[in-house]
């Protein structure tokens, strides 16, 4: 009996030992610069000053989000240090700040830096250094290029994806449309136009007129008049808010009533539809992937309630009607999810690996049904959008969630 018991003890202790060694092997911690047992350092670059300073709200929202996470115990027990610098939207300054983050602050990765040319300026550097440049805050389609730039990944639907959704809608519901395009003469407008033409493919003849405007123009009235004269019966308005409102208003003034499609960039009730006049904006189409915090239909939505309580407790100066807060919240949540998935292996390589294996992740402020999916060959986290029509004083979502990648 005693012998048996001794044997049992010996056996069980052997088991314990082997189990212990096993866990040690399993939980082997691996860190690159910027991560430790207690801390994860994340870098970020935002235009807090300069022409695009309105977007600085995104960085502030993210800072507040990580502060909240830290108060709740951090990610896998590690506190997140969010270091955000200002580049004033100037690419040369972005390079300086990125190098400061990587070489001086030793961050694990750079997250959600804003702007197309600013991020393009540091893309090569980040890939040479093999430091992740995650969830770039720009709608350019070039961030989805895992073969040439395996350390860079986008986040939001690209302009080209969005353009494809509209093209699909037009070809299906208005196959004989004559499309007039008004676009802003910069990377945003041109990338969009490119996507639109690619989506129409052999039906590109449907585009009967294109008008480009410069942001320095005080008014675009004459462009609208020209588009009307071209005989177009569908207007795609690739514009930023101020010009979007002008376009809607002018079309109404000259009694032109085409089917109007407005980019997501300008689908703001307070910033565009109201100044353009609700009576002029009825029936305008657009697409969205984020919930609009100004829309009462989300008041009972659990995700929206979480977002609103975050605003109340951790970012009281944040404006719920500003789409940038909704955006920053969802992006920060995606980042936190990836870091959580990394577990104790906080190396550059594993961060990229986990970022490229997101499956059906749904941040609180994304539209229901839209999820984040990535793979080693797919670096475009959000690819879905839902169409919406302006009715009364708000947007009404309709139809299914549309994916840009399915069919042409």
């Amino acid at each position, binding site marked *: 009996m005693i012998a048996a018991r001794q044997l049992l003890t010996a056996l069980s202790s052997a088991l314990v030992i082997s189990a212990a060694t096993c866990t040690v092997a399993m939980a082997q911690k691996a860190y690159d610069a910027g991560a430790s047992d207690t801390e994860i350092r994340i870098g970020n670059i935002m235009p*807090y*000053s*300069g*022409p695009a300073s309105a977007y600085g709200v995104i960085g*502030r929202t993210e800072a507040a989000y990580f502060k909240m996470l830290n108060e709740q115990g951090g990610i896998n027990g590690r506190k997140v240090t969010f270091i*955000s*610098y*200002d580049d*004033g*939207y*100037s*690419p*040369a300054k972005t*390079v*300086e700040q990125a*190098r*400061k983050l*990587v*070489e*001086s602050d030793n961050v694990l990765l750079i997250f959600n830096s804003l*702007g*197309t*040319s*600013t991020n*393009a*300026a*540091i*893309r*090569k*550097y980040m890939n040479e250094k093999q430091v992740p440049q995650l969830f770039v805050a720009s709608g350019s389609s*070039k961030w989805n290029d895992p073969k040439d730039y395996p350390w860079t990944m986008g986040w939001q639907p690209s302009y080209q994806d969005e353009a494809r959704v509209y093209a699909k809608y037009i070809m299906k519901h208005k196959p004989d449309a004559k499309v007039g395009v008004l676009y802003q*003469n*910069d*990377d945003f407008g*041109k990338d969009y136009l490119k996507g639109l033409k690619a989506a129409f493919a052999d039906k590109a003849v449907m585009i009967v007129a294109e008008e480009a405007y*410069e942001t*320095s123009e005080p008014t675009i009235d004459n462009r609208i008049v020209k588009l009307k004269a071209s005989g177009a019966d569908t207007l795609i308005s690739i514009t930023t808010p101020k010009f979007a409102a002008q376009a809607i208003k002018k079309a109404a003034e000259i009694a032109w009533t085409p089917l109007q499609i407005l980019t997501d960039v300008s689908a703001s009730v307070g910033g565009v539809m109201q100044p353009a006049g609700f009576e002029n904006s009825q029936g305008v189409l657009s697409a969205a992937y984020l919930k609009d915090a100004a829309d009462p239909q989300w008041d009972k939505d659990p995700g929206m309630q979480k977002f609103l309580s975050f605003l109340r407790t951790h970012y009281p100066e944040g404006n719920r009607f500003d789409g940038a807060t909704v955006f920053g919240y969802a992006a920060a949540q995606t980042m936190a999810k990836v870091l959580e998935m990394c577990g104790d292996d906080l190396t550059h390589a594993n961060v990229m690996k986990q970022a490229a294996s997101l499956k059906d992740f749904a941040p609180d402020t994304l539209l229901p049904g839209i999820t984040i999916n990535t793979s080693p060959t797919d670096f475009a986290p959000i690819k879905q959008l839902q169409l919406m029509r302006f009715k009364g004083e708000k947007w009404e979502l309709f139809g299914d969630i549309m994916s840009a990648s399915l069919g042409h």
Partner: protein
Amino acid sequence: MSAAEEVVTEAPAVEAVPKRAMTLGYGTSLAVLAALILIPLFVKNFIIFQMTMLLIYGLAVLALNILTGGSGQFSLGQSAFYAVGAYTSAILMEHAGMNYALTLPIAGLICFGFGFLFGQPALRLSGVYLALATFALATAMPQLLKLGYFEHWTGGVQGLVVTKPDAPFGLPMGQDMWLYYFTLAVSIAIYVASVNLLRSRSGRAFMAIRDNEIAASAMGVDVALYKTLAFGVSAGITGVAGGLGAIAVQFVAPDGYTITLAISLFLGMVVGGVGWLPGSIVGSAFIIFVPNIAESISKGLSGAVFGVLLFLVIFLVPHGARQVAIVAQQLIAKLKKN
């Protein structure tokens, strides 16, 4: 009284001509040079990069200093010349596969031509009107770079990515360090040439025009030629700086060369001391580091903090770094006497 003349009253020509007033003393120059050569050996790559940018902006400020401090003409359009230089280097390197070092003189020559030509119509303007004309150039440039006709070369709104050169002859140093020393060599050459230019016959002609155009032409100075020449030289140096900037940043895009850059350079010149060439590097340090300091004080109000700091500088030392240098010199002289 035009703005140009106001500057003149504060910086009498007599002071600009003697060697000492325009440059640093021999000993000080050597000390600064030694610091510039030695510091990179002991700091991180990121700091080396910042120092490279310091030299590059220093060159651009120096160029403006020759134009404004030397010939008394204003320019808010330096960002346009800087952009042309940057694009010239980038296009030659990426499309024609040319060696980076060879692209710089070409960038300089093209910008010289561009500046010289721009100087022709600008001849009819002076003071604030000239400033406005150059301002127009600066606002137009980013849009010109986006034009569809040039898109094949400029990359349009997407810009161009530039490859950073390795150190030649198998020298055991990183890309950043090599580029720094390369930039330093170019900067010293241009600085020495500029000092000599201002001390030469042409330089005296510039300053005569600055001080009094009518008197200068009465003395036989070809006012039109020297005014456009000053524009050309200034644009040429700015172009070289732009080319170096493109190589250091490894990227050119229209967004990088907006009017903000031109204003920064102008600011750098004022802070460094108008007409005092060594001040250029102080001015350059101001426009690179003070925004960072302002940001570390307050993220939301960085612009306002920067404004306050700038205001303090202008209020306390209206003649910029030159004033500080002169005070320091007097102090040292006093100490020596005692």
